[in-house]
């Protein structure tokens, strides 16, 4: 379970102060898949890094599974947007997926099992000896997802993971995320700028305002749990929800730091 309370982050450089995040409060319950959307420059990456323990907030707290986050917390796995730079090019696919497990001091036998299962889950069985740069963009992102999955986290953090991938591959990867989420029963926080993707994937969508950021709005996506690219996106309810989110984002772009009422 992820709880963000009154999160505030101010960047100081010399005399200048930039308030990236003003007051962010939202919760992701255990096992939920929540999508975060916002206009460009709304501090999504700052927020994500605070949650991942890579950045210290100026105020407010982040609690993961009841414990306050003050450094990269165990039980949290992150998938970065820049898969090409996040996977280590000097290691094979297998070694990349296995590395975090070695730090967790898992036995070799168990590690091998986890790696195999993870690569299988992302449909990349057989690529163990390849190097990341030998694979296509979509496949590289799958490796990054496999690495996160093999880590057996309680919470998965995904930072616009499909932004740099072509549309058809993105559709496959979106379905992969939902399938993995349902199978592994992890909590997922998915950050994206793609509104359609947010509504397609999420159980809830949290909309952020522009900088200085607060939560603009939240909606529950009451679409059926079994979703597919063809039918769900044609569903009229999908269009309604998507329009609502879009309107909120447009409104957010016009008034920075607007405090929207949560619905």
């Amino acid at each position, binding site marked *: 379970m992820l709880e963000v309370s009154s999160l505030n982050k101010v960047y100081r450089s010399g005399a200048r102060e930039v308030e990236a995040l003003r007051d962010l409060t939202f919760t992701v319950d255990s096992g939920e898949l929540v999508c975060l959307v916002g206009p460009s420059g709304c501090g999504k990456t700052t927020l994500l890094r605070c949650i991942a*323990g890579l950045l210290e907030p100026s105020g407010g707290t982040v609690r993961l599974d009841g414990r306050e986050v003050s450094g990269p917390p165990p039980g949290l796995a992150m998938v970065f947007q820049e898969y090409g730079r996040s996977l280590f090019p000097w290691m094979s696919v297998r070694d990349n997926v296995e590395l975090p497990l070695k730090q967790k001091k898992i036995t070799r036998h168990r590690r091998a099992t986890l790696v195999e299962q993870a690569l299988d889950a992302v449909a990349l069985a057989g690529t163990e000896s390849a190097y990341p740069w030998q694979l296509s963009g979509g496949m590289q992102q799958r490796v990054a997802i496999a690495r996160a999955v093999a880590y057996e986290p309680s919470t998965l953090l995904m930072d616009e993971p499909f932004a740099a991938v072509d549309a058809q591959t993105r559709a496959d990867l979106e379905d992969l995320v939902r399938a993995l989420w349902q199978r592994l029963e992890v909590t997922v926080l998915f950050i994206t700028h793609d509104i359609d993707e947010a509504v397609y994937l999420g159980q809830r969508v949290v909309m952020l305002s522009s900088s200085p950021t607060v939560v603009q709005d939240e909606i529950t996506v009451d679409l059926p749990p079994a979703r597919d690219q063809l039918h769900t996106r044609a569903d009229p309810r999908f269009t309604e929800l998507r329009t609502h989110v879009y309107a909120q984002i447009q409104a957010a772009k016009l008034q920075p730091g607007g405090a929207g009422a949560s619905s």
Partner: protein
Amino acid sequence: MKRVAYVLGLPVVLFAAWYLLSAGSESFYAPPLSKILESFGKTWTLDRFTADVVPSLLRLTAGYAVAAVLGVAAGVIIGLNRWVRATIEPVLEFFRAVPPPVLVPVIILFAGIGDGMKVIVIAFGCVWPVLLNTVEGVRAVDSIQIDTARAYGITGPARIGRVILPAASPQIAAGLRQALSIAIILMVISEMFAASNGLGFTIVQFQRSFAIPEMWSGIILLGLLGFVLSLLFRLAEGRALRWYHGLREAQRRS
């Protein structure tokens, strides 16, 4: 077949030209190539090899190895700490700018004229490119890779061994390559200054006693040595950095 022709073509032509053009040479300083080759076989016997070339190579290896280990170790420590790096970098750049052979007289003061002096000269002279390149390589490690390591709890020695060093290795390799050239130069110069055996020493002896064909044969041997070492380095680097060359090739193609 065509490739072999290209690789061997010009060298063979040049060699033949040298041979033929110098065949009737009466010049003292430029004897016929045939004579040089003859003296090559006579001079560089197995005995002479063991007595002179091997010690030179041993000193070279020792000095280079010391410089490599110290340079990388210090480079990692300095590169990881922003404040230390900012403070010490100008000092390092200054030391690197001093032409290495100039240090030979200084080190002779401290270390005499034995083998130790030569190893110290080589080590002291070629550590700077390794050190500075390591610092730069460590500093320039992709921030996303650092974040990934932090996010997955990869810290301490594992972080240095599995993330920082491999990421910096292309830059470190460039430093090691520069260091090799400097090491060879210093090996020869330290022997020209003060030695009782060695390749550089032998060549200078030939020159001083006006044994010209022998001197030339020594120069050729030195050239061959430089070439072979450079080749060995490239082979080693090609294997160790196979991933890097693969990555660059993939990027070029996309």
